[in-house]
């Protein structure tokens, strides 16, 4: 430190603690963590406004019908009701919305296409009044035949889910009930097949998974004096919502001001609009604030789900275990509306070969329009379904070749430099073989770990406290899987983010303020932004402004992209702020020391320092009462669309890899499964917050486990109606179902990405499910070509 008498700007040596605390690479704690665990966090459903009304949506009880008539008179007559709106009451000609193109009606007109489709909305002074009024709306339906799978959707006389399609995918599909189709063709599969010594084929079924987030859809719309509306909402992407909401309301975007409120998880389920437009319509109609909160039952109808899929795979290999070719067909059920289906198709196709070197590939992925619930984004986004199939194939093929299943994968594993089936080179580390080696090398949990001196500890056995076995029928199995996921938005999408960063002195201390529109949905983005600001600006105090539309778009909190893209935008804005701060410093103090002009300068612990560690000035003295603010958009390197016929193209920004080893115990007589351990190794490039990284990996792993053994929305194939829209019958893992999850984090930097980081959130969701399935197959000897596995599949009942 400079002595008291030294002039301002006298250089001194920094000896200890020169790194700003709480920067990147540290496991700083998230601000919302304790609040969420203790139940004090304010979610969007907790909002309240003076004079507020409650909105309620009337939904279709049937999957496919003509609406013959709607009579709202009785509902309107009910005391306490302020408004009832149907399609006819919409204020403008823009009456549809959608993530990729607007095919989803704000309210049904003349026809409903899926169970639970919104038909009318009600505002009343009490939620129960609104519910009862909605029940009094008389809708006459004339039911239509339902389309529920590929054969019914593409039958010659199939009812068309959308007639007269004008979307840009329509021209390139073979049937109007095919939403989008993407082939990926590389090499010569027929020729390669002739070189194969072994060929395995399989047909796989992937069930419909729900995001099952904690906080149901909710928000509050407050009409403003200027004729606009303020919307407080739990979402994944404020500006995408805004783009879809404003035209329906007939308002310019600046009159629809959106602020993110407490989000209770998302996992893709908040990419599409839910109650946003409905709440705004009712608020503008009544002139009063309107709150809408779905209950759990409604939530199952209020957001899209993960696409169920049928996957047909053929792989070949030579005697020495080299993959020869892949022919695959992936049929995704998009349900009644497009949502994100086209992008899911692009992912499933381009990542359908998995993290393997296969030169000759013929993949076709497509999404159907059906009368099933609409499906769209969910953690893993098309790559999950494919991983389930190709990993089952790898085990089968390894067995045929007569190789160890892990060694077979390692022999064929892609690496940096591998050309993807899209022709895109993998131009950053791809440690697939190493990840597999690491999970295999981890010590196995002890056998019969449920035995204790006092008998069997049922908590450690399949069935748990339900006390179904004391060891009878229990067999252990071990399985492996690895997957590949893209990071960020692909196929030429302009995937940018915006950050506004300000630096000033507050209370005698330099403080940074970070303002983005990034939706914090629980991923820990706000924690990481503060870490980045500390590292780049050398401050301890960072204020994170609430996310809203008063700043430019941050893009979606999805596709494992926010730390990369909005983190990159914050880093970039911080660097620009730093440059300006240093400019000020040079102006004020440049004459005191030549290092101002010659050295690489950093901001550390509230000071300007040289890269040699010499302190040039205190930031307080540099800034005085000036503040420096920068708002800037930031982009990752551009991508390009896949060729429509061959799927060739530089489509993805970055890849993310994870491998799992699952250890399960199966009660083979009752068909019950206990996952004992799910070990994961993942390359994250750089762990900006190691604790959050491990949390993401364990969370993704658990979500994959759920998909393996319990999670499935059941849709009646005869009626297309959802059979289990509740947490009573849609089961997600409890803590007793959640195994030990040792995590091995690799940090092999990607030179293209900020700090070398790699998106983390989705990759563990891919390989977890097939690893558990492989372990169950290993325990039981059953083929198990569908997930989730239910007791009746394991017992043949």
């Amino acid at each position, binding site marked *: 430190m400079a002595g008291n008498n030294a002039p301002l700007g006298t250089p001194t040596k920094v000896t200890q603690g020169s790194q700003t605390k709480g920067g990147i690479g540290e496991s700083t704690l998230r601000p919302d963590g304790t609040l969420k665990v203790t139940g004090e966090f304010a979610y969007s459903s907790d909002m309240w406004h003076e004079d507020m009304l409650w909105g309620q949506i009337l939904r279709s009880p049937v999957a496919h019908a003509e609406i013959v008539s709607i009579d709202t008179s009785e509902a309107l007559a009910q005391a306490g009701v302020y408004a009832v709106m149907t399609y006819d009451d919409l204020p403008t000609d823009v009456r549809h919305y959608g993530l990729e193109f607007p095919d989803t009606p704000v309210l049904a007109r003349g026809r409903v296409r899926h169970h639970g489709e919104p038909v009318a909305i009600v505002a009343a002074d009490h939620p129960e009044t609104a519910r009862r009024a909605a029940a009094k709306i008389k809708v006459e339906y004339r039911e239509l035949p339902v389309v529920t799978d590929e054969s019914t959707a593409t039958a010659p006389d199939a009812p068309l889910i959308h007639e007269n399609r004008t979307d840009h995918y329509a021209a390139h599909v073979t049937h109007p009930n095919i939403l989008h189709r993407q082939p990926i063709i590389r090499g010569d599969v027929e020729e390669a097949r002739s070189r194969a010594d072994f060929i395995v084929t399989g047909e796989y079924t992937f069930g419909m998974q729900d995001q099952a987030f904690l906080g149901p859809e909710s928000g509050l719309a407050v009409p403003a004096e200027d004729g606009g509306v303020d919307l407080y909402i739990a979402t994944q992407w404020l500006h995408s919502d805004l783009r879809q909401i404003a035209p329906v309301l007939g308002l310019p975007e600046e009159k629809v001001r959106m602020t993110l409120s407490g989000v209770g998880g998302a996992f893709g389920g908040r990419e599409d609009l839910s109650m946003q437009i409905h709440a705004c319509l009712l608020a503008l109609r009544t002139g009063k604030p309107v709150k809408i909160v779905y209950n759990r039952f409604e939530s199952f109808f209020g957001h899209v789900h993960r696409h169920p899929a049928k996957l047909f795979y053929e792989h070949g290999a030579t005697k020495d275990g080299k993959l020869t070719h892949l022919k695959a067909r992936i049929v995704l059920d998009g349900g009644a509306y497009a949502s994100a289906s086209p992008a899911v198709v692009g992912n499933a196709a381009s990542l359908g070969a998995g993290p393997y070197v296969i030169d000759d590939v013929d993949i076709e992925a497509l999404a159907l329009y059906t009368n099933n619930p609409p499906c769209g984004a969910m953690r893993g986004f098309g790559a999950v379904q494919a991983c389930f199939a190709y990993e089952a194939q790898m085990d089968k093929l390894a067995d045929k070749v007569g190789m160890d299943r892990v060694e077979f994968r390692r022999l064929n594993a892609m690496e940096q430099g591998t050309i993807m089936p899209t022709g895109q080179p993998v131009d950053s580390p791809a440690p697939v073989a190493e990840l597999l080696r690491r999970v295999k090398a981890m010590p196995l949990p002890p056998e019969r770990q449920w035995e204790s001196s006092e008998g069997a500890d049922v908590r450690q056995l399949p069935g748990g406290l339900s*006390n179904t076995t004391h060891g009878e029928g229990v067999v252990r199995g071990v399985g492996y899987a690895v997957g590949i996921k893209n990071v960020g938005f692909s196929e030429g999408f302009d995937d940018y983010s915006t950050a506004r960063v300000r630096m000033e002195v507050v209370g005698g201390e330099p403080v940074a303020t970070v303002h983005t529109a990034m939706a914090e949905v629980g991923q820990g983005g706000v924690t990481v932004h503060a870490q980045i600001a500390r590292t780049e600006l050398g401050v301890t105090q960072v204020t994170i402004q609430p996310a809203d539309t008063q700043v430019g778009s941050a893009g979606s909190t999805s596709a494992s992209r926010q730390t990369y893209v909005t983190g990159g935008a914050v880093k970039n804005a911080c660097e620009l702020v730093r440059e300006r701060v240093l400019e000020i410093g040079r102006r004020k103090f440049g004459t005191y020391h030549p290092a101002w002009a010659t050295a690489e300068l950093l901001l550390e612990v509230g000071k300007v320092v040289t890269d040699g560690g010499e302190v040039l000035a205190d930031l307080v003295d540099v800034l005085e009462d000036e503040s420096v603010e920068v708002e800037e958009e930031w982009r990752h390197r551009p991508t390009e669309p896949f060729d429509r016929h061959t799927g060739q193209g530089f489509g993805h920004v970055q890849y993310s890899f994870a491998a799992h080893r699952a250890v399960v115990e199966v009660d083979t007589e009752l068909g019950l499964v206990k996952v004992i351990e799910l070990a994961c190794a993942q390359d994250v490039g750089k762990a900006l917050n190691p604790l959050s990284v491990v949390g993401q990996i364990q969370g993704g792993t658990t979500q994959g486990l759920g998909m393996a053994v319990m999670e499935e929305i059941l849709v009646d194939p005869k009626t297309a109606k959802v059979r289990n829209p509740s947490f009573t019958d849609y089961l997600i893992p409890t803590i007793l179902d959640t195994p030990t999850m040792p995590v091995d984090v690799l940090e092999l930097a990607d030179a293209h990405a900020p700090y070398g980081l790699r998106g983390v959130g989705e990759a563990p969701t891919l390989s977890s499910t097939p690893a558990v399935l492989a372990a169950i197959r290993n325990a039981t000897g059953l083929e198990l070509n569908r997930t989730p596995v239910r*007791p009746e599949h394991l017992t043949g009942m």
Partner: protein
Amino acid sequence: MDFLRPGSWEEALAAKAEHPTAVPIAGGTDVMVEINFDHRRPEYLLDLNRIGELNDWEVGEDSVRLGASVPYTSIMENLRAELPGLALASHTVASPQIRNRGGVGGNLGTASPAGDAHPALLAAGAEVEVESVRGSRRIPIDDFYTGVKRNALAADELIRAVHIKKAEGPQQFSKVGTRNAMVIAVCAFGLALHPSSRTVRTGIGSAAPTPVRAKAAEEFLNAALEEGGFWDNGKIITPSVAKQFADLCAAACNPIDDVRGTASYRRHAVGIMARRTLTWTWESYRGTAATEGAA
């Protein structure tokens, strides 16, 4: 909806007599779900939470008198020795929060075939003490369940307590669900050995329109055990006897296909649980008998 809050049992009976459609509520773990999901809109709710005695239990000479509102947590913590089957069943009820609120009275009132207490009550042998302003009566558990979610209560009656025979032999309870905690039964099975009467009793949950006993299986096993002198010689039950018992238990089921499982799986699983719980209880009985013999 009116909320009736009687301060005493007598007031509760009077209120129920005056409003026979009133739905009694104690822990609320069933009723509130029904109301929140709008599955029912009762005219009156009859809150029993101010009636302290419903939370009490008495351990008598031969049986336990269990107040209708005694929460499952208390059964697990305090009545494990007297009511081992019911204590095991209590362990499988939902989550700790629900077990702190819910009690056997609610299970009986709802009379869902999936109620976790029923197989244990059927196996142990129980009587339901019900009362109205007209008087009190005890309904044997075998006569209590009359249909899907229907029981033998008259419209003006309330469940006051359950009298359950104290265990004089080993008891077991098993339940199949598709996750390891907090799950509604796909099917469940209870078994109790009654050495003094040299009988076994069973209870099956979620595999028929009502909770049921596998009477033919019980009769078969009673006869087989008697014939072989098993109660005295403590021999291992032969696999063929165990298998036939299991088959007869499976045959006692009359299950349906639903979102939680198939009928054939339920029948199969009840058979497996019957065989296993028979093995566990009999091994335990032999162990006890051997110890006593040695002493």
